[in-house]
């Protein structure tokens, strides 16, 4: 089975995110004063072939731990859907 994996990688809470800050300032300047705590990360999508959803999640987690996210500075969220 093929699963579509969505990975969201975000800078770890508490670490300075200068991109998030800059965008937050820009939103405020545009009048969106209700916006706050902006964080900027990256989204990665990939197909994973696996026997089960659990296996797909486990493999995707390994990919994140090994390459897609840096455990020192980033957290990630996984979302797995079957095709």
């Amino acid at each position, binding site marked *: 089975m093929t699963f579509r994996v969505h990975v969201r990688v975000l*800078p770890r809470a508490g*670490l*300075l995110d*200068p*991109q998030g800050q*800059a965008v937050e300032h820009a939103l405020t300047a545009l009048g969106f004063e209700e916006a706050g705590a902006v964080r900027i990360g990256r989204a990665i999508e990939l197909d994973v072939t696996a026997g089960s959803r659990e296996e797909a999640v486990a493999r995707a987690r390994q990919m994140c731990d090994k*390459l*897609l996210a*840096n455990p*020192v*500075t980033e957290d990630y969220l996984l979302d797995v859907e079957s095709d």
Partner: protein
Amino acid sequence: MPRVAVVRFPGSNCDFDTLRAAESVGADAYFVWHRDTDLRGADVVILPGGFSYGDYLRSGAIARFSPVMQAVQRHAAAGGPLLGICNGFQILCEAHLLPGALMRNAGLTFVSKPVDVTVERVDTAFTCDYEPEERLRLPVAHGEGRFVAAPDTLRLLEAEGRVVLRYVAATERSPFQPNPNGSANHIAGICNADGNVVGIMPHPERAADRLLGLTGGSGFFTSMISSHQQSST
């Protein structure tokens, strides 16, 4: 004379400067390609600056898995001197040969300018020709040089004296702004617990020839010669 391997990744761009700086102090320096699996008897290994793999994903994240990095890991594990400059430092952190990580500069912009640093560690193979607390002016050129590490790791680095270079505050003689990237504790370079693996953001190879205007970086290269002579006598 020490054999100095300069590792080239696709996207390395300080490789020739580094080779030349090593040659200029008499080292037997040569290039090793990222697909090579043998460092050809290197006494010293340098990962030069640049943008390996286009900085895709994160700086150094993909270079870390190059075939040559297994040989580099073995060299480091055996106590061999290993220096990462700029992108090389980023690769060493991604490879877990050094703790912490290098993130986007606090000011968001790519910073390319001379900075002042002090040499806080003078017993490594790359800094033994400097005086303790010697002040250097070296160029930096990076977009992702903000050193971050977990609070425990930072405390450990400080307690064990593993900060090799630190950005220093401007003085009358130094018109340059300190800490160009927002690094924790103004850290510009660190080493591993054994002191044989060193990573620095400034570029000593760009400050190792009078023609380039700055010469403060040449000590990194003469130190390789001095420490090699000491270890082989």
